[in-house]
């Protein structure tokens, strides 16, 4: 069973969202997603300052097995990216909710947060997919 921390929010495309306060969130991909992908070898992230609408392509994760798009789970502006992933993409596998984070976004519409799944909702979804 994969790890689904209860203090995070989720979307069906397997990204997690942590509320950092002040309309800022941190985004990554879930333990379930990294497990499906296998060893991650490259992560392509957007530039700081770029803007996204919910559902846009935010980046790409390449594993030994497949390339997978990462979608923006919320709308906003990228204010930080995890530069560590350039040299150490395996952090996505070893610590998906910690050092393997992808980007921080300043939300343009904080009400979108209400549409996200909680841990139970996401767990059910993973269960249904397997």
């Amino acid at each position, binding site marked *: 069973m994969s790890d689904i921390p209860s203090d995070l929010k989720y979307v069906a495309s397997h990204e997690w969202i942590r509320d950092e306060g002040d309309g800022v969130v941190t985004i990554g991909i879930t333990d379930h997603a990294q497990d499906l992908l*296998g*060893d991650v*070898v*490259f992560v*392509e992230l957007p530039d700081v300052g770029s803007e996204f609408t919910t559902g846009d392509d935010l980046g790409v994760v*390449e594993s*030994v*097995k*497949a*390339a997978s798009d990462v979608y923006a789970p919320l709308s906003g502006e990228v204010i930080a990216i995890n530069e560590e992933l350039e040299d150490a993409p*395996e952090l996505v*596998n070893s610590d998906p909710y910690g050092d393997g984070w992808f980007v921080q976004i300043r939300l343009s519409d904080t009400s979108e947060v209400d549409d996200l799944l909680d841990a139970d909702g996401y767990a059910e979804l993973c269960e249904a997919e397997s």
Partner: protein
Amino acid sequence: MGQKTALYEKHLQMNAKLVDFGGWDMPINYGSQVEEHHKVRNDAGMFDVSHMTVVDVTGADAKEYLRYLLANDVIRLQEQGKALYSGMLNETGGVVDDLIVYLMTDPDVTGEWFRVVVNCGTREKDLRWMADHTARFDNVALTERPELSMVAIQGPNAIAKVLSVVSESRVKLIETLKVFQGLESEGWFFARTGYTGEDGLEVMVPEEYVADFWQALADAGVAPCGLGARDTLRLEAGMNLYGSDMDEKVSPLSANMGWTVAWEPAEREFVGRKALETQRSAGVKQKLVGLVLESRGVLRSHQKVMINGEEAGEITSGSFSPTLGCSIAMARVSAEIADTCHVDMRGKLVEVKVVKPSFVRNGEKVFS
């Protein structure tokens, strides 16, 4: 649920992630495919390859039968245990399967016999094909050996670690093995062959002993490795995968298998010979090459290869090379390809280097 090898319980104990492979439940990895890959390049890893099909070919006509069945010529096997890699072709020169054949007896002994190892995904087709082609010979028997499990132990320290877990008489036998040679020992079979580009052994073991053998190897520090690492290792070594890099519609001449076709003696008739001769005299239009992507990204099978904006072939196997830290691929392309070309990667044209389809041998990069 698929078929299970005699090592199934061991795989579960060692936290394997299992996938369906040709109807078998096989380990894809035991945690990290990349770590397993490095373990083989730098130390020693082991693979359960019991799903592969072993067929013994016996009878007075065994040699003449194989000389007819295979594009390579078993007459080249001039020493007991020597192995030969060959394609088994159809009449149009396509590859029915690729296989390894061992001469099991002394070459001058009467009643010499052979052991053939074919792929698991093609088992039924191969067995039918092999049986059908016995018709023109009076005395050939094919015996499948499903009771033999098979473990491949590969890497610079692989043989030393095997030596530490077998009996003294087997140590002596293994120490005599030349590269590409295999010998029997009381129902076991030790062959210095593999599919990784490293030194090592492939060991056939009666299935009742294989779990203990596997555990002893693990205790000696041999890392269990899954099919994921096996694929990146064989790709780095430039070894073909049947069904990806060639199949029944592909000639060995377009699959970097020209070296496995024994044209001489010219009077030897073998299945597919006429078709290959026609192709050779017409000129072979496509060849299998290696591609190296020095920038970021991963080449994947079926991506299109472009030369001067025109489609000129496609990738047959592509992945990330853990040893080189970049992506590599094999591609079947127009024979006129130059030193570089482009690949259509998810809608973007990316420049790649064209090399011979061999990337890593004995831990070292082999192309420049």
